[in-house]
């Protein structure tokens, strides 16, 4: 098992950390915290407290230190933690009220809330600025069911192979293809006005 993924740098660092090398954990955080942050942002939208969630992800890494076994690439293992946490977070948010993602985009191109009460995104009518398009796309993705959203984000924005997405989501490759197909179908419908207008400002 270990030999299958022994060349993966993340696995090597995690095993070193498990063996007592604290510096290896520092390197893991430096190397993967950006990806975790990006994944959480795409999955949850630009809600406040994402850095705390990144911290929570790595806290789980610390807690899993003794029982860690390299049965997959490190990123696969890590993304599984991220996905589980993001789903929990989504459920907590939906218990608190409507998922709110349509705050105005900040200077970093993020931000915002959308009240998801319709499968169709309210698209900007007048000028299609880039930020508006980005916001509309993120809204449409945020409105997808959890599994479809995760599969699409991992495939499209993180270049994760289907086999790994299947491992992350605890599903089969066939199911992942189906999820992504459905997600794209939904997005094509939701973003139809933008697609008809050309979409790219």
């Amino acid at each position: 098992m270990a030999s299958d993924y022994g060349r993966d740098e993340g696995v090597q660092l995690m095993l070193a950390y498990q063996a007592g090398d604290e510096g290896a954990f520092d390197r893991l955080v430096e190397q993967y915290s950006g990806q975790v942050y990006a994944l959480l942002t795409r999955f949850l939208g630009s809600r406040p407290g994402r850095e705390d969630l990144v911290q929570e992800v790595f806290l789980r890494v610390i807690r899993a230190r003794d029982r860690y076994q390299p049965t997959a690439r490190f990123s696969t293992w890590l993304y599984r933690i991220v996905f589980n946490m993001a789903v929990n977070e989504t459920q907590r948010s939906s218990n608190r009220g409507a998922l709110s993602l349509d705050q105005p985009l900040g200077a970093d191109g993020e931000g915002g809330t959308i009240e998801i009460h319709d499968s169709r995104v309210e698209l900007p009518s007048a000028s299609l600025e880039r930020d508006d398009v980005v916001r509309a796309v993120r809204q449409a993705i945020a409105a997808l069911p959890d599994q479809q959203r995760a599969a699409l984000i991992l495939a499209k924005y993180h270049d994760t192979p289907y086999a790994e997405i299947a491992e992350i989501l605890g599903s089969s490759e066939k199911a992942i293809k189906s999820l992504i197909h459905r997600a794209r179908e939904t997005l094509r419908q939701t973003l139809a006005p933008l697609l008809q207008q050309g979409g790219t400002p």
Partner: protein
Amino acid sequence: MTIDPGCHEFRAHLARALEGLPVPAELQTLSWHEHLLGCGACRELLEQEEALEVLLATLPEPKLPPELKRRLVACLTHASSEEVAATSLASADRGLDDLLDAAGAPVPAGLGERVRRGLRAELALDALLEVDTGVEVPSDLGRRVLRGLEAERGQRARRRFALPTYAAAAAVLLMALGVSLWSEPPAEEAQPRAVVVAEAEDPDPSMLAVLDLIEDDRLWRDYEASVEPAEAEGDLHLLLCDSLEPGDELLLSFIDVDDSETVNPAGG
């Protein structure tokens, strides 16, 4: 139109099951059946889906001719690597026409156009999704995360090293104890203790008498063990005579013997 919550839940489960996703355990038991008992529409839907699954399972795996497949993959790869623009779409369209022509098989009317439309829609969606170029990660995120985890890491490190530390300390103590015991001078072993027996100048006569009796008894037991019982009884006197000195008449007078001839070793 409102949908019954039971139907909604059932259909959500059904959709998950059809997608091959993990289905809640209760799905296998009552909730399905309870709802189906009272809902004809969902029962019918399930039957249709099951029939469709059976039908789909009987279909052979669709296979493209190898050459067509190669050219289609080449065409699609080329198209997706291009910027989505009219030129690339046109290029893809031409490629598709070429390969459909080359396939030589009868092509259903309108297939090319439908494929082109689908391809165009996919490419357009990809282009739209790619407008969202990336998430800007806050600078110094890693360091802040590490700082936030310092307390937990410290606590875990202490816990992690507590047991080995105690074990090491115990080992050191045991070793020290062993060394101290081992390094004591083995004086007694070097010079074995001599057994000192106080010698009496004149042995106590009563003690000597007892020792004699014990000795006689031992001789008797040894003899008894070495001969047959009947033989032993007959030879008793002979043995006694052998072990007595000629001057022990006094002792002989106390022994009840039947054969006086054998008793007198002096034989006179």
